[in-house]
Each structure stands twice: as C-alpha cells, then as structure tokens.
C-alpha cells in the first residue's frame, strides 16, 4: 500500500511538471501578451515600454521565463499578479469562499436531485416518469451553459416581475448592494446560478445512477431479497442502491476539484466573484502568473482527487485491490 502510494505520488509530480510545461508554453505562445494593455496608451514612449517590459521580466526568452517561474514555485513563491501586484495565492484565496459556496451548494443540490430521480427512473423503467426525466437529462447535457444561463436571466431577471414590480430574481452578483446583510437576499442571488449548474450536472449524475441501478436490480441477490419477503423500499435502498452507488463515487470524486475551479461560464454570466471569473479576467489580460497558478492548482487537485478516488474505491469495494 505504501509503495503504491509513493509510486502514485511520484507519477503525480511528473504529470504536474509536464502539465506546467505545456501550460506555460501555450500561454506564452498566445499572441499579444501582457504588454498590449499599454499599446493604446498613446503617451507611452518606446523607452517607457521597454523599461516596463524589462521590469516585468517579459524580455527573457520563454524557456528562461519558464525555468525562473518553476524555480520560484519550487521555493513556494507563486509570483505576483501583473495587474494587481498582489501575490497570486492571496488573489485566489480571496475568491475561494465565493466559489466554494456556489459549487458546494451545487454539489449538494445535484446529489439531492439526481439520486432520487436516478433510482426512481430505474425502478420504474419505461414509465412516463422515466421517459420525462430521461429526456430532460438529455436536454440538460446538451444545452450550452452560456445560452441556458442567458435564457434564465432574461426570463427570471428581466421579463418576470415580482409583486413589487421589480424583477423576480436578481440576474447578477452575490447580494443587493447598499442593503444590510440578509440571508434571504443571499439565497435569492444563489437561485439562478445554482439552478443552472444543478440542471446541467444532475443530468449526468442521474443518467449514471439510472444505468447502474438498472444493472443491479436485475441481479440474483435482489430477487433473493424480494423472495425473503423484504419490503420493496428496503430491497431498493439496502440491496440495490448500496451497490449501484459505487460508480457515482468516482464521479463525485472527480468533480470535487471543480469545487475549487468554479464554473467559468456560470461565474462569468452571473458576475459571481469566484475563481472562474478571476481566471477569465486574468486570461483576458494575459496576466500569466495568475493564470498559471489557477490552472496549476486546479490540475494538482484533479491529479490528487483521481488518486483519492482510487483509494476510496478500494475501501468501498473489497473486490478491487491496489497494486
């Protein structure tokens, strides 16, 4: 087990090194670069531009810049944002709570919606219920997120009015500005983005659970359980679900990093001040230390969660052995 763990961690480090190399190369290869923010400031002389470029370390060739960046990182220095001059970790930390709130709620809602729907669809296979939600799930998986988000905004934040004549739901932000803290206000702002995210990701979870549940309920031991005279709900939950839910663990585990990464489109559409939007803004401004840090932390979390899923899997299912 220990050898296995050491080997996996070593592989993870190598993977991350390769990822960082590719990411840095891609970001540096993108045309323009940070200096274009000054291009339209007509009073900047070439000397000024040269001085700023040198100061920001943009003069070095790309491999040198990469090695410098990597060297600093290995010493624990993630660098500073080119635009705000703050350490990038501080920038990320300041947005983390917002993203965790949004994505955490999304994850809970998704599980609350997807698990019962998945079970019920499987148990009542080919019923109108099953057909209805299977169709809805396909829609959820196929809808482009940004389009769906805009539709939600137009319907609930522009067209539909509440009793006070104001839009039914707020279309952007985390709370109403200038008003004292109110839990209800917070919840109102969460409704649209969480609904959208839940709709899209429940679809996937529900489909997964439905098919694994279908596999399970045709197993012999389910028939045995029924033959023993157990009540139907006990058969489904105790014998069916426990076995069917294992694949879902993989899915949840692999989705855990997105708690950190946030939802790029959702946060951008709903002006949610989370990490997804931070990353988007940084990428638009070619703020490469911030872009690199966000992507690297996200990559690290994915690599680690894959490992974690493998470990949890082994614990849940005694048939699986790690070697």
């Amino acid at each position: 087990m220990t050898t296995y763990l050491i080997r996996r961690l070593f592989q993870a480090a190598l993977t991350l090194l390769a990822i960082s190399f590719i990411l840095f190369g891609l970001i540096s290869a993108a045309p323009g670069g940070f200096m274009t923010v000054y291009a339209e400031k007509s009073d900047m002389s070439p000397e000024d531009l040269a001085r700023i470029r040198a100061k920001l370390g943009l003069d070095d060739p790309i491999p040198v810049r990469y090695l410098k960046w990597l060297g600093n990182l290995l010493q624990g220095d993630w660098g500073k944002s080119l635009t705000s001059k703050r350490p990038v970790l501080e920038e990320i930390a300041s947005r983390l709570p917002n993203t965790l709130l949004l994505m955490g709620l999304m994850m809970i809602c998704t599980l609350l919606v997807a698990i019962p729907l998945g079970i019920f669809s499987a148990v009542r296979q080919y019923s109108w219920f099953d057909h209805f939600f299977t169709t809805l799930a396909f829609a959820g998986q196929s809808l482009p997120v940004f389009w769906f988000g805009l539709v939600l905004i137009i319907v609930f934040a522009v067209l539909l009015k509440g009793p006070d004549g104001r839009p039914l739901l707020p279309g952007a932000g985390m709370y109403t500005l200038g008003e004292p803290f109110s839990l209800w206000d917070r919840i109102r702002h969460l409704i649209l983005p969480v609904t959208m995210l839940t709709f899209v990701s429940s679809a996937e979870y529900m489909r997964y659970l439905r098919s694994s549940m279908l596999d399970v309920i045709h197993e012999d031991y389910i028939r045995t359980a029924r033959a023993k005279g157990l009540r139907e709900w006990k058969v489904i939950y105790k014998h069916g679900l426990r076995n069917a839910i294992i694949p879902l663990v993989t899915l949840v585990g692999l989705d855990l990093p997105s708690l950190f990464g946030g939802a790029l489109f959702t946060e951008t559409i709903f002006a949610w001040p989370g990490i997804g939007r931070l990353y988007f803004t940084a990428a638009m401004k070619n703020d490469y230390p911030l872009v690199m840090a966000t992507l690297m932390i996200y990559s690290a979390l994915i690599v680690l969660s894959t490992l974690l899923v493998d470990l949890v899997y082994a614990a849940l299912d005694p048939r699986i052995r790690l070697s």
Partner: protein
Amino acid sequence: MKSFKPLFFLITALALILAACGSPATPAPSQPEQPQQPAQPQQPAQPAATEAPTVDPNAPVKGGTLIFGTPQEPAILNTLLTTSSIEDAVTSLFVEGLVQVDEKGEYVPVLAEELPTVSEDGLVVTWKLKKGVKFSNGKEFTCDDVKFTMEGALSDLSQVSTSGYRDIETLECPDPYTVVATFSELYAPYLRLFAYIVPSDAGPLDQMETWEYNQKPWGTGPFVLEEWVPGDHLTFVRNPYYREEGKPYLDKVIIRVLPSREVGIQLLGTGEIHALWDITEADLPSLTKMEAQGVTFSAAITGENELLVLNFGANDGSAPADPAANPHPILYDLRVRQAIQYAIDKQKIADTLLYGNVKPGSTVLPVGPFACPQPPSEYNPEKAKALLEEAGWNVGTDGIREKNGMRLSLKINSTSGNLLREQTEQVLAEMLKEVGIELTIENMPSDVFFAGGESDGLRDLGKFDIILYTTGPALDPDSHLFSNYTSYRIPTAENEWSGANFSRYINPDVDRWIDEAAVSMDTATRKALYCKVAEQINKDIPRIYLYERLSITGHRKEFRNLLISPSFVDFAWKAQDWWLSK
C-alpha cells in the same frame, strides 16, 4: 449506506464552512440605499446642508447612494501602477491633479490655484498650489506631494509614461504652496503634467508594489474608498476633509462589477444601477429604447476617430522604412487614396449604423485646446471613378478595376467580435464596389490585431492594406502626432518596432512642424503648427477619419450633474457635484 455517509458529511460540513466564510464579504450593515429620501443632514461635517429641500427641482439634493456599473474589473488603485481604463476612471473619484480637463476639453486648475506659469526661456514652470487642501487621512497637501509624484513616476517600478517628468532637472519647493520645475529641455505639453497626485505618505518608492495604498488608497478628491470586495464591488464614501463645503452631495458611490454591458443596460432599465460606465456608440439604440424606463445618456467627443489606416509601403511583411523604395502596389498612389476617400459616404455610416449620434470624421484634432476643424471630405463616387481611370485602373469584366493584369482588390483588417466594426466594413465594401474597388474583410482577435512587431503583429510589419480601429490624441496632440505621423516613428526591426506610423507616411513638412511645435512654449504658435499638420494630413490621406468617437455613460435620469470630460482619465472630475433626484 454506512460507507457513504462520511462523504455526505464532508460535503455538508464543507458547504457550511463556506457559507460562513462567505459572510465577511458582506458590506458591513450600513444605511440602506436611499436615493429617494429627501436631504437629511446626517453628519455634523456638513453645515451647508441645513436648508430644507427646496421646491426647485434642479437644486441639488444631498444624500443617497449612487451605483455605477462596469463590465471591467479594477485590479489596483495606485495611479502609478494602473493598467486599464476602468482603473483610471475609478481612481478619479479620489485622486486629483494640479490640473484637469473639463467637459469642453480645456485645462482647468484643480489643486493648483491657477494654470502654471512659464519663464521667458520656457525652461522654468511654476505652479501655485491651493492652501489648506487635505487628504482624506487628514494630512495637508503640499509641494512635497507633487515632488513625490514626480519621483514616483520616474521610479523603477512605475508603469506610467515618464514623458515630461524625465526632462525635469530639478523640482523645488520654495514654500509648501509653490512648485518650481526647471526643465533640461523645452517640454511643450507641460500643462498635462501632474494630472494626478500620489500622497507622499503612501510608502517607500522601492516597495511600491506592496503598498497598502494599492488596495486601500486615499486622496484629496471628494470620495474615499471604504470597502473593496474584489470582483464584486467597491464602496466609496465622502472624504471628511474635502475642501468644498457641503460637497460631495452623495453619501456613497458604489462601483459594481457586472458580467457584461448587455446585462448592465438591462440593470439600468430596472434601476438596479444608476449609471453604466464606458458604453459604445453601438449601444445607443438600446438605451434610447429604454427612455420610458428613465434611462438616458451623456456623451463627449473624445478626440479619437474611428479611422482607416492606408498602407503606403509594401504589404509583404517586410516592414519597409521607406515606402518610396518599396511601395504598396495600389495605395502608394495618392489618386487611389483620394478615390477611396471620395467613395466613402461618411454621413451615411453615421446615420445608418450609428443612428446619427456621431459626427463624421474630418480631422485628427477634433476637440480641446488644439482643436483644428477641417472641411468634411466630399462624397463623390464620380470623382472617385475619374481619379481611378486617371491612375490607370480600368473596369474589368467583373466590374472590378484592373491595371496591368492586377485587380484593384484590397483587404481590410480589424478586431473581431465588434458588430459595429463588422457592419462598417460591410458598408465600406459596398461603397467601394460602387467605384470598382474590391474590399475583402479579415478580422482577428484584438490581441492578435494589436500585437507588436516582435510577435509578428501586422501593423508593425506593415502586412496589411487597410486597417480599421480607433485612435487619436489624448490631451495634448504632441505625442500622438509625433508617434503616428512623423517619419521617425515608422516601426521597423531596426528601431525595435517603436512608433505608430503604420501607414509609413513620410512628409518632411509634417516632421518639421511637429518638431517645431514640440519646442515651443506658446500655445497659439503650437496650435497654428498642429493645424498645418492636420490640414496636410487631409491632403496626403495616410488615414481616413470615419467618425468621431464618443465617451458615453448611460445613466438614469435621476442621476444629475454628470459632466463628461473628453478625457477618460478624468471620468469623475466633478463627482462632488453629482446628485440624485427623486
């Protein structure tokens, strides 16, 4: 279920923690937004507010919270380190300069008593400062702050233009309210210096990047930053030490970060925001439609033109320094350039694409102290055809002109994703087709379009026929005319791609006039010289000015006294006078 419980527990616990973590970002419980409330003198600091609200609907009402929306996000608020226009705009709520540009584009004194005076030889410039001005932290504003600002601009870490400041040999403070700068050489645009002041207690210059001031700044302006939730909003409150009595009228100004302009326009209609910063001409129709919902806009000419840059040099990417030796096969001929100008109906573009909200472009200097209006170019397709015939371009079988087997076909490049620009290009293509010129369109992301020569940017390499974008002089035309129209500023590999004379336009007279104006301290002389330049440019046609760009702020009708300066930098230059009516 046993084995699954921990995961559920973990997620629930996590979410609870997050929910708790989220709370500190909430604005501290404060008075609710109250734009509808009549004036209530709440703070003892405003003795002038004792009168009850008058019957005059145009008399300013005190109090209220104004919410400004912007799709851009500020990252830093130190004027020496800002990189985006939203940052310059937001800092103008609390940063003031010795001078500023008013709504007519003229310089007016702000922290200075009057505009600076210049010695006989033009090398010594003297500013008299207002007395008794205090920063929002209570410190008095003196000559030391001016000196610190100059040192800051010239320091290693600064990211601002050092033009002018680097020519100052000594800057002395004979008394706290007098600033005497001695220049090593004549610096004609001296008026624009010190358009911002950085307080001398902001921190040591060699640690500028870690100043607390960057995120929690202060200044002499009417407002002071109270709270900043990155990516969400910034709250500004009155500066308790602001020098004008009874002002600012507003209690608070909140800058709210929005996902996009489109959402911002909707929020203007619903009244969730009072104003939307930096919208474009293309958004004006949707604002006009919301007139009944209480939405309107204010605009000023920025001095910039949406324009076409015509390439004189070879378009093969060789970046020739002298187009005469290596000319563009079609555009080097003045008659072709004149024909293009004659073929373009600028008024039609302004009327149909911009709903008559803009003026057709006619000059490089449309506004400000150096404005030089020129007669509008004539729309005359017949003249265009005649000129093209004269130049040897005859109509071929498909209606496009030809000469020695070469088709009169040109490519136009611009930034992609801008609907108005795309429409403009299509209209241009139709107009040029009328006279037998084929125009093909190729757009690219703005990063690619504006890339420098070191990244193979097409402008620096001269790898284009015609490009479409916006540019123009900011405040003083000096640096813009120098970098865009003189032969010294043709970007080449040798000069490391410095300069913006992408047309590769060479006219010795223009060079000379711009040089002369740069060393004259007399505004009238400079204005006359720049006017000659503007006139000559219109004869040589390196660029065709399509329409004059506007700086537009959409706002609700109850937002009063919003005066727009043509300079983006001075966005909030009269924020002390802003008020909200019922």
